[in-house]
């Protein structure tokens, strides 16, 4: 009986409790965030109302009337664009809206009209075959920028 009591006492005294860590702080996650933004710009596009111009038979010093061509430009409203109209030869004469910079894009379509003529006095016995090309591009696209937490705070303070 004594031995039993002694063993029980030793067992009680030697018991060790293991606590489970339920700390929300240490077990919790640490997070930080950043915002990512971008403005999607509608691609600029241009179409011509004329696919080909055939001046027919031409001889040197022919008097030839010019042919109007309308280029329709579409893109992001309020952006500006630059355009140029050119030929890959030397006999086509271009007048009208053949170049421009900082042209504002308005909502809907933006029409550019240029005239295509022929330098008949320089036409010789060779046939004429030239390609007229119009190119358009945005003047500027806003670049990437990033802000640190301190800069964000300063900007917020500046805005009041």
């Amino acid at each position, binding site marked *: 009986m004594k031995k039993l009591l002694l063993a029980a006492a030793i067992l009680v005294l030697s018991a060790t409790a293991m606590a489970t860590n339920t700390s929300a702080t240490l077990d919790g996650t640490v997070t930080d965030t950043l915002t990512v933004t971008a403005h999607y710009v509608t691609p600029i596009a241009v179409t011509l109302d004329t696919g080909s111009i055939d001046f027919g038979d031409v001889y040197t010093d022919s008097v030839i009337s010019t042919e109007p061509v309308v280029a329709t430009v579409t893109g992001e409203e309020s952006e500006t664009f630059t355009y140029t109209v050119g030929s890959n030869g030397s006999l086509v004469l271009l007048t009208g809206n053949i170049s421009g910079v900082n042209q504002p894009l308005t909502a809907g379509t933006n029409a550019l009209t240029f005239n295509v003529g022929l330098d008949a006095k320089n036409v010789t016995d060779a046939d004429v075959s030239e390609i007229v090309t119009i190119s358009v591009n945005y003047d500027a696209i806003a670049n990437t920028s990033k*802000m640190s937490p301190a800069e964000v705070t300063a900007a917020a303070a500046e805005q009041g």
Partner: protein
Amino acid sequence: MNKIIIVLFILSTLSFAEEGLFYIEGTGIKAISMSLGVSSIDFGDVYNDSDVDPVLVDFSLNAEAGYNYQVEISNEDSSGVVQVSRTSSGGYTDGTITYKAIATGEDEPQEFYVDLNTGIMTHDLSTIITVMVVYLEII
């Protein structure tokens, strides 16, 4: 019977007189600290297939030396436009980046890159990237 009574008396007396001691043990582990060096990235004007340079996001992390931690970099964009990678040259994913490491106890500079898959852009972008750090085990 008398013997039993005497034994119980002695035990009862001893139990009133004894002192109990126990020890509390615990290892102090500092909480993880982490902050991003970048709060916002504005990629400006972007159109389909724009060439956009990846943007570096650096952050500092400090955790108890010898303890494992996990970093998770995720974003809320479901369109797949926003992509992240731990290197600027490749390995970009529109999903979540997860990696593990052992803390040194010192400030550990880390970084990742944010890029855009402009080929599938159809509208303005506004999303949030979240970096989460957590200890992998607490004993």
